């Protein structure tokens, strides 16, 4: 009955990290040109320690300058989106909540697109303008969606909040399409913003993603206990002494930060935050002290595999990564919705 019984155990960390690392090596070695996994590991290992790569190994450039940054970005995006999804599902005690189902990701893309189309930049930090706008719009979207939900249905029923999210997403998408049509010379194609892609991402992107994950993700991880209280019920959380207003605000900012940064780099990759925590919950249970760390690894693994499928399924053509995640996510959404409805009516 000790306190650490609730936490994520060491051997679980090792197991999850092992699976993630294996997936990582697999995803770096596979692709349009397959490099044997042993060679991949040699290339990675040698370049980390600064040992020259043996000439017998072909194509170290593909591994190091193309696939490696991409897979790192994919893993970090997967981890971030899953953590954000897990936090939202706890905060709103709604297993269907996710950046994409609530419309937060659409909001973030609108922010990013506006920044690009109207040339909003922050002096000396050219990339930050897009990112800050994406985070700000993600936050505003969350506020709008939640205030609407509270107005319509104070108990925050699953259906109400998802319905609002869907309508909000569609509304934002229409504005998004409009802006992209007018500014087609500046803004990337609409599919990037609706389906996402991490093709061509750089190590610089990875650095930004890592920083966001450490700061915003760290804040979420430190609030696991409060999220448990929210997941049991907001009223109960208040009764046991949680400062519900402050915690809600902190989590919302952290979630917006994660989603905003991910969207500004990789577009809207849907359902990642829905799929991962749901799968992970089956192993760890709903306690956020276990669920959240496991979601980090699970999300990285899931998105790396999804990206791999997107790259090799129709080789040499490449699918947008969101096609893969949405395909899996939408099916799972129906399943969760169905089972949770049955529970309620039992």
């Amino acid at each position: 009955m000790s306190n650490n019984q609730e936490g994520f155990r060491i051997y679980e960390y090792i197991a999850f990290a092992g699976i993630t690392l294996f997936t990582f090596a697999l995803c770096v070695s596979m692709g349009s040109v397959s490099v044997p996994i042993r060679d991949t590991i040699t290339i990675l290992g040698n370049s980390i320690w600064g040992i020259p790569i043996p000439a017998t190994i072909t194509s170290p450039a593909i591994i190091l300058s193309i696939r490696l940054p991409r897979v790192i970005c994919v893993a970090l995006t997967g981890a971030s989106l899953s953590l954000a999804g897990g936090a939202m599902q706890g905060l709103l005690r709604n297993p269907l909540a996710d950046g994409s189902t609530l419309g937060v990701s659409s909001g973030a893309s609108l922010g990013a697109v506006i920044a690009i189309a109207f040339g909003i930049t922050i002096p000396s930090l050219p990339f930050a303008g897009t990112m800050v706008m994406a985070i700000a719009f993600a936050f505003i979207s969350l506020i709008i969606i939640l205030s609407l939900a509270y107005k319509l249905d104070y108990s925050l029923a699953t259906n109400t909040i998802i319905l609002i999210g869907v309508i909000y997403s569609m509304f934002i998408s229409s504005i998004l399409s409009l802006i992209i049509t007018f500014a087609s010379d500046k803004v990337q194609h609409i599919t990037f913003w609706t389906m996402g892609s991490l093709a061509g991402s750089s190590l610089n992107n990875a650095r930004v993603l890592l920083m966001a994950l450490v700061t915003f993700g760290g804040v979420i991880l430190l609030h696991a206990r409060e999220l448990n209280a929210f997941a049991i019920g907001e009223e109960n959380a208040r009764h046991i002494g949680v400062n519900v207003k402050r915690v809600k605000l902190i989590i919302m900012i952290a979630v917006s930060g994660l989603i905003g940064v991910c969207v500004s780099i990789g577009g809207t990759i849907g359902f990642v935050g829905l799929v991962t925590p749901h799968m992970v919950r089956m192993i760890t249970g709903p306690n956020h002290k276990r669920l959240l760390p496991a979601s980090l690894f699970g999300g990285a693994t899931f998105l790396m595999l999804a990206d791999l499928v997107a790259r090799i399924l129709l080789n040499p053509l490449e699918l947008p990564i969101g096609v893969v995640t949405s395909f899996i996510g939408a099916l799972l959404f129906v399943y969760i919705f169905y089972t949770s409805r049955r529970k309620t009516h039992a």
Partner: protein
Amino acid sequence: MLEVKNLTVQYGNLIIVDAVSFSANEGQWLMIVGPNGAGKSTILKAISQAVPYSGKVEFDNTNIAKYKSHERAKIIGVLAQSNFINYSFTVQEVIRLGRYAYAPGIFSRQSEGDERYIAEAIEMTGLGPLLSQSVLTLSGGELQRVFLAQLFAQNPRLLLLDEPTNHLDLLYQKQIFALIKEWLKAPGRAVISVVHDLSLAKAYGKQALLLDKGKIKALGQIDEVLTAKNLDVVYSMDVYAWMRAKLGQWK
């Protein structure tokens, strides 16, 4: 212990609670009774700072509004009418959260006393055999007992109960009220509860507050408050005759 002065709650122009003053002292069990819409639950919500109000709510001569969330939770505990959980937390996880107020910070560790209070709460409510069971598998009565255990672990001095057994069958109703009566025996504690069932109020309450459309109709020892004269006016019917008729069937 608790001093409520001139409490008024208003939604727009609608006055729900109208200048209500009362107090609750150590060892007291105050029953708030009255018809639907009289403002009973709203009074509890105001005391636990869940709704905006005017007037003053003081605990041991300190304004409750000034307390931080976790400090308030150490003094006042609330048992809601019903709780619905979406995720399969275990019984133990829900009970343990009752100690949140004693280690509210991000880095604060749980204190030594935690385990003792948690064990006591489990012992009192007899939930030992269910500890690692998922709350989703529990009946409404069992779930309410879990939240009562959480409340006991929280160890507040004042308990606010908002019709805690409204949707429970008789056995659980009896269990919950018996447990609260037991809890109240320790020194320095008091209970205020909103109850619909006047017989239940009479059976467990020592003091009563009869509300009529947000105003106090009567306040004092329960037998002096729940008189035929008072009740008939508030409920617009012959309450005693109705109660006797209901009981008469069981001879």
